[in-house]
C-alpha cells in the first residue's frame, strides 16, 4: 500500500522527465542528489539496484563519504565531484555528476572552483541504507573483503528467496574463508523460509555446523514456529543447532572477557606506573598525578591541532596563536605518533618544575606533600580551564586506532591491542631504565637510603628531580593514550586518581612488579564480574569491596617491600 502511494506520488515526477532516452545512472544520481524530498531520493537510488555500470558504486560511495558537492549557480544547482590538487587560490577541478564532463563556465571553459562556491551534498541514514542495498549487490564481487562480508550478511538477514541464485553463483568463486562461511550462513538463513521440510532440515544442519552468533535470533524465531506446528524433527534439529550456537557464544564471551580484562588492566597499569614511581619509590603522596595525566592528554590535543589548522590559546589576557601545519591524510594521522614522546616530555618537564619548586622541600613530610600536591592539582586544573576552556576538548582517533579485528566473533579493537602492547613496552622500558642504566642504579640507591647514597657522593637532589620527572612523564604517556578512549577536560585527572592509588596500594607500595600484577588482576576481575553480573555498577562496587577486604588481610599489598624511604 505504502509503495503504491509512493508510486502514485512519484508518477507526476516521471511524467515531467524529458521524453525519449531513458536516464543514465549518472543522471539518476545527479537528480537524487539535488532532490530535497527524502522519499524521492530513496526511490531514485533504489531504482539503480542490479544495474552493472561501474559508475554507480563509484558515485554512491563518493556521496556516502561526503565527496559529492553542490555547486550553485544563479539558475541551478549542479552536483560535482572534485579532483586534482588545489592550486594557489585553493581551487580544484570539478567534474559534473550528471554527465561526467568537466564543469564549464558560461564561455565553455573548464571551471576551477574554491571552497566557498560549493557545499557538501547531504544524506540521511535511511538514504545511506538505500545506497547500501544497491551497493550490497555490487559489493558481492568487491575486492574489499569487509564489504563483501557485510553485503552477504545483509542479504542473508533479509531472508529474501529471490537472492538465492546470486549467492549460489558467488559461492564457488569466493576465495576468502570468512566470506565463504557468511555465504553459506546467508543461504541457510534464506532456506529456513523454504516450504520444503527437507530443505529446512538441511539448512538447520548447515547452521549447526557454522554456529554463528548472528543466526541465533533466527533460530529462536524458527523454534517458536516449529513448536507451534508441533513438528518434532524440526524442533529437535533447531534445538541442536541452537545449542551449538550457545556453546560457541560461551567461548566467545569467555575469551572476549579475558581480552577486555587484559586491556583494562593495561590501562590501569599505564595510569599507575608513574604513580608507582613517584608515590611507591619516592614516597610522595602525589595528588597531582591525575593532572600530569591531563598534561599528557592536552599535549596530544595541542599536537593534533598543530598538525591540523592551528590553535589560539588565551592565557592570562594574552592570546598565544600557534600556527598549524595544515596536514591531511596520513601525514595528519601521524600526529598521534608524534604526540606520544611529546606528552612524555611535556609532563616530565612539568613534573621536574613541580619537584624543584615544591616537592623537594617535603621529602620527609609525606602528609604535607599530600596537601601541597593537592593544592597543585587544583591550581593546574584552573590553568587548564584558563587555557583550554572549561568544556572538554575534542581529540580525534587516528584511523589506525579506530578499527578492529574480529576473529571468530571476538572483537579485538585496535586501540585495545595497542594499549596492551604499549603497556608492555612501557613496563619493559622502565625495567630497562631501573636495572640496566647508571641512572637506574642511582635511583634505586637513593630510594633505598637517601642519606647513605648522599654520603657516597650521589647527587641525590638531581636524582630525585629526574625520578620525579620520569614518574610524571609516564603519567603523560597515559594521558596521551587516554585521549584516544575517553574525555579530555580540565578535571579528567580526578576521574583516574583513585584508580591509580588503588592499583599501586594493592600491588604493594614501592614494588613495580606488584603494580603490574595488581593492574591485571583488577582489570580481569572487573571485566569478569561485569560479564557474570551484567551490571557495571554492581560490578564496580564488588571490585572495591574485594579490594577493601584484601587490604584488611594484607595491609601492605601483594608484595611487601622493606624500604627506609617509607620510614623516614
Amino acid at each position, binding site marked *: 500500500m505504502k509503495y503504491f502511494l509512493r508510486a502514485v506520488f512519484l508518477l507526476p515526477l516521471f511524467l515531467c522527465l524529458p521524453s525519449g532516452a531513458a536516464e543514465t545512472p549518472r543522471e539518476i544520481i545527479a537528480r537524487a542528489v539535488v532532490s530535497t524530498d527524502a522519499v524521492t531520493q530513496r526511490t531514485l537510488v533504489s531504482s539503480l539496484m542490479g544495474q552493472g555500470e561501474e559508475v554507480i558504486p563509484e558515485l554512491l560511495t563518493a556521496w556516502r563519504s561526503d565527496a559529492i558537492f553542490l555547486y550553485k549557480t544563479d539558475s541551478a544547482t549542479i552536483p560535482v565531484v572534485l579532483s586534482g590538487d588545489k592550486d594557489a587560490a585553493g581551487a580544484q577541478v570539478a567534474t559534473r555528476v550528471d554527465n561526467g564532463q568537466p564543469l564549464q563556465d558560461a564561455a565553455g571553459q573548464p571551471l576551477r572552483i574554491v571552497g566557498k562556491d560549493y557545499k557538501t551534498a547531504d544524506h540521511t541514514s535511511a538514504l545511506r541504507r538505500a545506497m547500501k542495498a544497491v551497493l550490497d549487490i555490487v559489493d558481492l564481487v568487491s575486492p574489499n573483503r569487509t564489504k563483501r562480508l557485510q553485503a552477504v550478511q545483509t542479504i542473508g538477514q533479509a531472508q529474501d528467496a529471490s537472492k538465492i541464485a546470486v549467492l549460489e553463483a558467488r559461492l564457488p568463486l569466493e576465495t576468502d574463508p570468512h566470506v565463504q562461511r557468511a555465504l553459506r550462513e546467508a543461504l541457510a538463513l534464506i532456506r529456513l523460509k523454504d516450504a520444503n521440510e527437507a530443505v529446512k532440515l538441511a539448512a538447520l544442519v548447515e547452521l549447526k555446523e557454522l554456529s554463528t552468533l548472528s543466526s541465533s535470533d533466527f533460530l529462536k524465531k524458527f523454534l517458536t514456529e516449529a513448536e507451534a506446528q508441533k513438528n518434532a524433527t524440526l524442533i529437535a534439529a533447531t534445538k541442536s543447532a541452537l545449542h551449538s550456537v550457545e556453546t560457541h557464544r560461551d567461548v566467545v564471551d569467555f575469551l572476549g572477557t579475558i581480552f577486555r580484562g587484559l586491556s583494562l588492566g593495561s590501562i590501569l597499569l599505564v595510569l599507575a606506573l608513574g604513580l608507582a614511581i613517584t608515590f611507591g619509590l619516592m614516597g610522595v603522596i602525589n595528588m597531582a598525578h591525575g593532572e600530569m595525566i591531563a598534561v599528557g592528554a592536552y599535549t596530544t590535543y595541542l599536537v593534533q591541532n598543530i598538525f591540523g589548522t592551528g590553535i589560539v590559546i588565551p592565557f592570562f589576557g594574552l592570546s598565544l596563536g600557534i600556527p598549524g601545519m595544515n596536514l591531511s591524510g596520513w601525514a595528519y594521522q601521524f600526529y598521534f605518533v608524534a604526540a606520544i614522546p611529546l606528552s612524555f616530555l611535556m609532563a616530565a618537564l612539568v613534573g621536574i618544575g613541580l619537584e624543584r619548586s615544591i616537592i623537594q622541600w617535603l621529602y620527609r613530610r609525606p602528609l604535607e606533600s599530600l596537601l601541597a600536591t593537592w593544592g597543585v592539582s587544583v591550581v593546574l586544573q584552573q590553568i587548564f580551564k584558563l587555557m583550554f576552556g572549561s568544556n572538554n576538548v575534542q581529540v580525534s582517533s587516528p584511523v589506525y586506532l579506530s578499527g578492529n579485528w574480529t576473529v571468530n566473533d571476538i572483537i579485538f579493537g585496535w586501540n585495545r591491542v595497542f594499549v596492551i602492547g604499549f603497556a608492555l613496552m612501557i613496563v619493559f622500558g622502565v625495567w630497562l631504565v631501573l636495572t640496566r642504566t647508571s641512572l637506574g642504579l642511582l635511583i634505586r640507591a637513593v630510594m633505598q637510603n637517601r642519606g647513605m647514597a648522599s654520603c657516597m657522593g650521589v647527587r641525590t637532589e638531581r636524582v630525585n628531580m629526574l625520578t620525579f620527572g620520569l614518574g610524571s612523564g609516564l603519567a603523560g604517556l597515559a594521558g596521551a593514550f587516554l585521549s584516544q578512549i575517553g574525555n579530555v577536560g580540565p578535571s579528567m585527572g580526578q576521574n583516574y586518581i583513585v584508580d591509580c592509588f588503588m592499583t599501586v596500594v594493592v600491588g604493594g607500595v614501592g614494588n613495580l612488579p606488584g603494580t603490574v600484577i595488581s593492574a591485571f588482576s583488577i582489570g580481569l576481575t572487573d571485566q569478569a564480574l561485569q*560479564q557474570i553480573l551484567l551490571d557495571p555498577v554492581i560490578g564496580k562496587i564488588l571490585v572495591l569491596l574485594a579490594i577493601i577486604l584484601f587490604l584488611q588481610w594484607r595491609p601492605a599489598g601483594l608484595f611487601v617491600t622493606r624500604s627506609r624511604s617509607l620510614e623516614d
Partner: protein
Amino acid sequence: MIKKFVSLLGVGALALCAFVGSASAADTVKVGVLHSLSGTMAISETSLRDILMFTADEINAKGGVMGKKIELVIVDGASDWPTFAEKAKQLTEQDKVAVTFGCWTSVSRKYVLPVLEKNNALLFYPVQYEGEEESQNVFYTAEAVNQQATPAVDYYLAEGKKKFYLLGTDYVYPQTTNLVLLEYLLSKGVPLENIGGGFVKDSSGKITNAGKYTGFGHTDYQQIVAEIKQFAASGDACVISTLNGDTNVPFFKEYAASGLTAETCPVVSFSISEDEFRGLPAAQLVGQLGCWTYFQSIDSPANKKFVADFQAWLAKTTATGVVKEGRVTCSPMVLSYDGMYLWKAAVEKAGSFEVDKVRAALKSGLSFDGPGGKVTTQKNMHLTKNVYIGETKADGQFKILKSFDSVYGEPWLKGKFK
C-alpha cells in the same frame, strides 16, 4: 572561590543598580534566575543563564512586561542541591521575585519544590525530564517523555527496526524513561526478548527495572559494546541511550572502534544537544540520532532571526562570564526563551503579576510562536510543542529527518501503554 567572588561581585553590582534605580523601582519587575554557574553542571546551565539575560534584554527593548522592565536576580545553585533550595528561598522570600526560571537536573527541581510550594511561587523548568510530577508551582516547558523518547521509538519502528537496546546513566531520569519505553515497546508488539540491556524483576515477576546502567563518569564500555555487537548481529537493531554528559565520549569511541555504525545499528541519544556537542568527538558521532523539540538547524524565519539576534547580543554584551566564541542554540535554551515569553503573555492576560492569576492564565492555553515552532500551554502545566528527530553532522549540527507537530505534553505515562 574566585568564581564565587566574581558572582558575589555580580550580585553586588545588581543590588547597586537596583539601589540606584530605586526611584524608578515601580517600573521594574524582579525575575529570578536559578542555575548552576559553578561546579559540574555549570557547563550546561551557564548557557541557560545567558539565554535568559538575552530574552530579558529583548523584552525590555520592546517595552517590558505590562510597561515594567524585567530586572533579573541571578543566583548560583553551584551544582549543589541544598544550595538550590537555599537560593530559591532567598529569591522568593527576600527578593520577592514574580517568577523564577531555573534548574537543570531533576534532583535540583525536587529540592526546590517544597520552597516553592510553601511560598506559592512559580518556577519555569526547561530541561527534558522523566515526568511523574505535576506541581502547581512549576510550569514545565521541558520535554516530557512522550515528547522525546516515544517519538524516537516511533521513528525507529517506521524505519523497520525490530530490536531495541536500552542504555543509560544510573539515576532517576534514565530509569523512569526506560521503564516507560519498555511499556511502550511492548504495547507496540515488540517482544520482550527483542529488548536488550537486561531486566530486574521483583519476587512476583514484575519488571521493576529495564535497561543497562553505568555510573556517572564511567569510562570502560568494552563489555557493553561487545554485548550490543552480539545483540545487533542479526540485524535491524538500534540503541536508545539516556547516557548523560561526558560518559558519551568513551561510549561512542568504543562503539565506533568495534565496527558498529549508524547504518548497522544507530544510537538515539536524549542528552546530546548542539551545546553538548562542543566537547564531543564529531567523527564518531556522525549519523547518530538526536530527538528534541528544537534544533538550531530548523529552517524557519523565526529561528533564523532568533539565532542571529542571540549572536548579535553575544557580540555586544558586557555581562561578566559570558563565553562569546563558538556559541550555539539548543532545545533547553529555546524552552527557557519560550518560557519567559509565555510568562509575559500570561501576566498580560491576567493583568497582574500575582502567581495565582498568572497560573490561571497559563492554564487557559496561551500560544507563542517560538524558534522551534508554535508552543501552547496546557491545563496540566506542560507544553504542547513540535518534536524533531535529527541526525548529527560533522559540524555539530543536526539534519532534521522527521518532525511531529504539536505533541501534547503528558507527564503521567507509567502504566499508560497497555
